[in-house]
C-alpha cells in the first residue's frame, strides 16, 4: 500500500461530515443579512423621528438665541441655560467656569466705579444666578443692628406682571451669609421685610468687589424676573445709593431646556434618546435614556419540569458559549454621552450644514452600538440647532442573538445527530469490511493453503458483492487446490489400468516360448513396469493416508515404546548406521495412532539415512513435558537451503537430487509427516542444527486429549 491513510473509513466519513458545518454558516450569513436590513430600517425610522421633532422646533428662535433681543411681545429675555454641573452655593465662581454660560455686563456710563456681570443657568429644579459686582467698598451687615438699607443688597422681583410680582431683598451679611427677605408692600405703601428662605444665596468678597450666587426654585419663578443691585457707599459725610439692574421692566426668563423638554416629552420614544443642541452643539435638552432594563427570565415559573430542566441545561452549556461569542444586549454599557453638554460628530456636522445625517458609533467599552440621526432645526434660513435622536442597536442585537441561538441550537442538534448517524453508518461499513478482511486472512494459512471458505454475505450492496466474489473466488481456488492434491491419486488410478494392460500382456508373453534375446527384453519391460507400479503406489500413499486419517482410531499408548520398537527395527535394517536413542525416564503417554507415529518416524529416519554424511550417526531424542512431547531426529549433513524451509512439508516438494535410481521420490515423505503430526495436534519443522553440521527434524506433539486434559 503506497498511500498511507492514518485513519479508517470512520475518520474519513467524519471528515466528510464536516460539510454539515455549512448549514450553520449559511444560516449565520443569512441572519447577518437580516440584521443589516433591520439596521437600515432602524436608521430610516430614527431619521424620521429626528425629522419630526425638528419640524416641531422650526422657527422658534427664542429657544435657541435668546441671549439678547426680545420675544415676540417685545419684552427682554433672560436666557438661562441648563447647566451641566451642579452649582454649590458658596459664592465661589469656580463652578461656573467651564459651564459655558454667557455673562451679561451691566454698567452705568455715569459711574464707572460700579458695574456687574450677571450669569444665569438652570440645574435641576432651580435657577441659579451669579452676580459679579464691581464695587470698591463692600458694605455688609457687620452687626445685628446694622440697617439693611445701609448695606449692599440685591432686589429680585419675580412674577408674570406687576400684579402678582414678588419682591425679595438679599442683603449681604457676614460672608458667605446672605439675608433673604421678602419685601411686602403694606396698604400704606410702606415696605415691610419678612424673612423668606425660599431663595438661597451666598456671597464672597472678590478682588474688585464681591460676587453672589443665588438659587431660586423654579416653582416660584413666575416667568419673569427683574433684579436691582443696590450699592451703598457709606462715607463719613454722606451715604450714596446707586442702582443698577434690569430696571422697571421685568425680563422674560427663558429656560430653553424646559420648553424643549416639554416638546420632547410629547414625542418621547421608549428606547430612543433625543437631544436638542444649539448651533454650536451645546446641549439644550435631552430626553430618554439608552439604557434599558435587563429582561426578566423568560421561563414561566409553572413550566413543566423537563422544560425547566432543558432550560437549565441550556443555560449551563450552550448559553455560556453564546454569551462568550455574542454581545449580550441586556448588559449595561458605558455611554460617554450620558451627561454630555456638547455634541459633535459626523451626524451633527451634517445637520449644522443643513442636511440630515446619521452615524454609527461604538460605546467606549464596546458594549453597544449607538445609532445617531441628526436633523437641522431651521430658524428662517439659518440652522439654529439640531435634533439628534439616538438609539442603540440592542433591540436588533437581541433579535439577532435570539435568532443565532436558535440557529445554533438547531444546527448543533443536526450536527450531533448527523455525525452520530454517519459515525454509526461508517462503523457498520468498516466493521463489515474488517470482518471480510479477517475472513479473507483466515481463509489461507501461512503456507497458502485454503483453510476455510469465506461465507458469502447476503447483503445486497457492494460489500455483499465483494464478499460473495471472495467466497466464489476461494471456492474455485479450493476446487483447484483439491484437484491438484487429488492429482497424484487420480494419476495413479488412471495409470493403473494401462499398466495392468502392459503387465498382463508381458505375463502372457512370458508364458509363450520366446527366443532368449526376446525374453531378455520382456524381463526388462517387466522391471520397468514394476518400478512404475511402485511409483504409482507412492503417489497414492499420501491420499490414502489422508483418507485413513479421517477414520483413524485413537488409542492411549506409550510413545517411548513406539520409539524404542521402531529404533530397534531401524538398527536391524541398517546395521551399519549408528542410531542413538534418548528417551525420558517416565513413560510418555499420549492419545493417538501409534501406527501412524511409526509411519511418520519411518519417513523421518528414511530421510535422515539418505541425507546423512557417510558414517555419521543418527540421533533420535524424545523430550516430554506435561502437555507436549518433542521428537527430534537429527543427522549430520549439508544444511537446508533457507528459501525452501517453509515448503518442504508440502506435497511434491523434494530436495533429493534427480537421479534414476530404483527408489522413486516424489516429495511426499515430509508431507505425510506433516499430516500425521497435525493429526496429533502437533507441528513438524526442519531446522539446521545449532552446530551447523546437520539438520534436525523436530516434531512437536500434544500430549493432551481432545478435552485438553493430560492423559
Amino acid at each position, binding site marked *: 500500500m503506497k498511500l498511507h491513510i492514518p485513519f479508517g473509513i470512520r475518520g474519513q466519513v467524519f471528515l466528510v461530515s464536516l460539510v454539515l458545518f455549512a448549514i450553520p454558516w449559511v444560516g449565520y450569513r443569512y441572519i447577518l443579512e437580516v440584521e443589516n436590513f433591520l439596521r437600515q430600517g432602524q436608521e430610516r425610522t430614527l431619521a424620521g423621528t429626528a425629522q419630526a421633532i425638528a419640524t416641531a422646533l422650526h422657527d422658534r428662535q427664542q429657544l435657541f438665541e435668546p441671549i439678547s433681543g426680545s420675544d415676540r411681545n417685545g419684552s427682554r429675555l433672560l436666557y438661562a441655560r441648563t447647566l451641566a454641573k451642579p452649582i454649590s452655593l458658596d459664592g465661589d465662581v469656580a463652578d461656573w467656569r467651564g459651564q459655558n454660560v454667557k455673562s451679561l455686563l451691566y454698567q452705568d456710563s455715569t459711574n464707572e466705579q460700579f458695574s456687574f456681570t450677571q450669569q444665569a443657568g438652570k440645574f435641576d429644579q432651580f435657577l441659579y444666578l451669579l452676580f459679579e459686582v464691581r464695587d470698591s467698598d463692600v458694605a455688609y451687615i457687620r452687626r445685628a443692628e446694622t440697617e439693611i438699607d445701609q448695606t449692599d443688597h440685591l432686589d429680585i422681583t419675580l412674577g408674570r406682571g406687576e400684579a402678582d410680582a414678588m419682591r425679595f431683598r438679599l442683603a449681604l451679611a457676614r460672608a458667605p451669609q446672605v439675608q433673604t427677605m421678602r419685601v411686602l408692600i403694606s396698604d400704606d405703601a410702606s415696605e415691610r421685610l419678612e424673612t423668606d428662605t425660599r431663595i438661597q444665596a451666598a456671597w464672597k468678597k472678590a478682588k474688585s468687589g464681591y460676587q453672589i450666587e443665588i438659587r431660586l426654585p423654579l416653582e416660584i419663578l413666575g416667568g419673569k424676573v427683574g433684579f436691582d443691585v443696590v450699592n451703598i457707599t457709606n462715607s463719613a459725610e454722606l451715604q450714596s445709593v446707586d442702582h443698577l439692574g434690569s430696571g422697571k421692566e421685568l425680563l422674560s426668563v427663558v429656560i430653553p431646556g424646559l420648553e424643549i423638554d416639554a416638546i420632547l416629552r410629547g414625542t418621547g420614544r421608549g428606547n430612543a434618546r433625543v437631544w436638542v443642541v444649539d448651533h454650536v452643539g451645546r446641549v439644550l435638552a435631552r430626553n430618554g435614556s439608552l439604557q434599558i432594563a435587563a429582561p426578566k427570565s423568560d421561563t414561566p415559573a409553572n413550566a413543566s419540569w423537563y422544560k425547566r430542566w432543558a432550560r437549565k441545561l441550556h443555560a449551563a452549556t450552550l448559553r455560556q458559549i453564546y454569551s462568550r461569542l455574542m454581545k449580550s444586549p441586556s448588559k449595561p454599557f458605558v455611554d460617554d454621552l450620558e451627561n454630555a453638554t456638547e455634541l459633535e460628530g459626523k451626524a451633527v456636522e451634517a445637520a449644522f450644514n443643513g442636511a440630515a445625517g446619521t452615524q454609527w458609533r461604538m460605546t467606549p467599552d464596546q458594549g453597544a452600538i449607538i445609532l445617531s440621526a441628526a436633523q437641522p432645526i431651521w430658524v428662517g434660513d439659518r440652522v439654529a440647532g439640531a435634533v439628534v435622536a439616538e438609539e442603540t442597536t440592542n433591540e436588533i442585537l437581541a433579535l439577532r442573538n435570539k435568532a443565532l441561538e436558535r440557529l445554533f441550537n438547531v444546527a448543533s442538534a443536526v450536527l450531533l445527530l448527523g455525525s452520530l448517524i454517519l459515525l454509526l453508518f461508517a462503523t457498520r461499513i468498516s466493521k463489515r469490511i474488517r470482518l471480510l478482511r479477517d475472513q479473507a486472512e483466515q481463509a489461507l494459512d501461512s503456507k497458502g493453503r485454503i483453510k476455510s471458505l469465506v461465507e458469502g454475505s447476503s447483503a445486497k450492496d457492494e460489500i455483499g458483492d465483494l464478499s460473495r466474489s471472495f467466497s466464489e473466488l476461494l471456492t474455485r481456488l479450493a476446487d483447484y487446490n483439491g484437484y491438484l492434491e487429488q492429482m497424484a491419486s487420480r494419476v495413479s488410478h488412471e495409470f493403473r489400468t494401462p499398466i495392468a494392460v502392459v503387465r*498382463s500382456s508381458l505375463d502372457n508373453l512370458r508364458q509363450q516360448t520366446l527366443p532368449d534375446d526376446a525374453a531378455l527384453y520382456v524381463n526388462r519391460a517387466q522391471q520397468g513396469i514394476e518400478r512404475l507400479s511402485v511409483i504409482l*503406489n507412492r503417489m497414492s500413499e499420501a491420499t490414502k493416508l489422508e483418507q485413513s486419517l479421517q477414520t483413524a482410531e485413537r488409542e492411549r499408548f506409550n510413545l517411548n515404546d513406539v520409539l524404542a*520398537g521402531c529404533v*530397534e527395527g531401524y538398527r536391524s535394517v541398517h546395521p551399519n548406521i549408528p542410531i542413538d536413542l534418548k528417551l525420558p525416564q517416565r513413560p510418555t503417554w499420549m492419545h493417538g495412532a501409534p501406527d501412524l507415529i511409526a509411519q511418520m518416524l519411518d519417513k523421518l529416519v528414511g530421510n535422515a539415512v539418505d541425507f546423512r554424511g557417510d558414517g555419521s550417526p543418527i540421533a533420535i531424542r524424545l523430550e516430554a513435558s506435561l502437555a507436549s512431547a518433542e521428537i527430534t531426529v537429527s543427522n549430520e549433513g549439508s544444511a537446508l537451503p533457507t528459501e525452501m524451509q517453509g515448503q518442504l512439508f508440502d506435497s511434491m516438494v523434494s530436495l533429493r537430487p534427480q537421479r534414476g535410481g530404483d527408489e522413486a521420490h516424489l516429495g511426499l515423505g515430509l508431507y505425510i509427516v506433516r499430516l500425521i503430526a497435525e493429526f496429533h495436534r502437533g507441528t513438524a519443522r526442519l531446522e539446521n542444527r545449532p552446530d551447523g553440521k546437520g539438520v534436525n527434524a523436530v516434531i512437536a506433539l500434544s500430549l493432551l486429549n481432545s478435552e485438553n486434559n493430560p492423559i
Partner: protein
Amino acid sequence: MSRTIAIVEDDPLIRENYADVLRRQGYDVNAYPARKPAMEAFKQRLPNLALIDIGLGDEMDGGFALCRDLRALSPTLPIIFLTARDSDFDTVAGLRMGADDYLTKDISLHHLLARISALFRRSDLLASPPSQDDILERDQLRVDMKRFTVTWLEKAVDLTLTEFWMVHALAKFPGHVKDRDQLMRDAELTVDDSTITSHIKRMRKKFLEVDSAFDRIDTVYGIGYRWKA
C-alpha cells in the same frame, strides 16, 4: 470338467489378456464388458468363479451391484474384485459386499492365478474332511491349509484369502516378528504399508467378534507384527 471363470471388465485389452492367461491354464473363460450382459448370463448359468472390476463403463460402482446380485444367486460362489481402485474405502466396501478377495490391477498374473487356484481349492475342500497334515494349531487357533479356514475357540473366523495368508504367516512361528515386507510376500500382496496396517486391523476386529478378549496379534512398532504365543 473344466471350471468356468467369468471376467467382468470394461477394458477390452485387460479383459482379453486375463482371458488368454486363464484359458491357457485350462479354465473356461466367459468375458463380459458390462453388468447387464454378465448378469443375464449368470442367471442362465453360474460360473465357478467370478472376477469383477468395480467400475464398469458408465457405472462407477457397477461391480459392487453385480457382486451383490451374484451373491444373492449363490452364497458360495468365489468372487474376486480386481480393480484399479485401491482406497481403504473401496476395499472394505468390496469385502462387505461378500467378495472373497480384493486385488488391485497391478497384481502379477502369477499371483492372480495362485489366488484363483487357492479359492477353487477352498471351495472344493469345504465338504471333505480335514486331514491332520494340513492343520496348523496354536492354542485355540486352528488354521486349515486346505480349506483356507481359520477357527478360534472352535468358532470360525471369516477371513479373506489375503487375511488368511497373513494369519497363517504370523501363526506359523509364534513370537517371531514378521515385518511388512515378509507379510506382503507371504500374503502374495503388492500393497503399501498402510494397507497392511488396515488388513491387520480388520483381522483383529474379526477375531474380536469371535472373542472379545483376543489380543494375540501384536504390533511391534516400526518393525512389523507377531503372533503372541
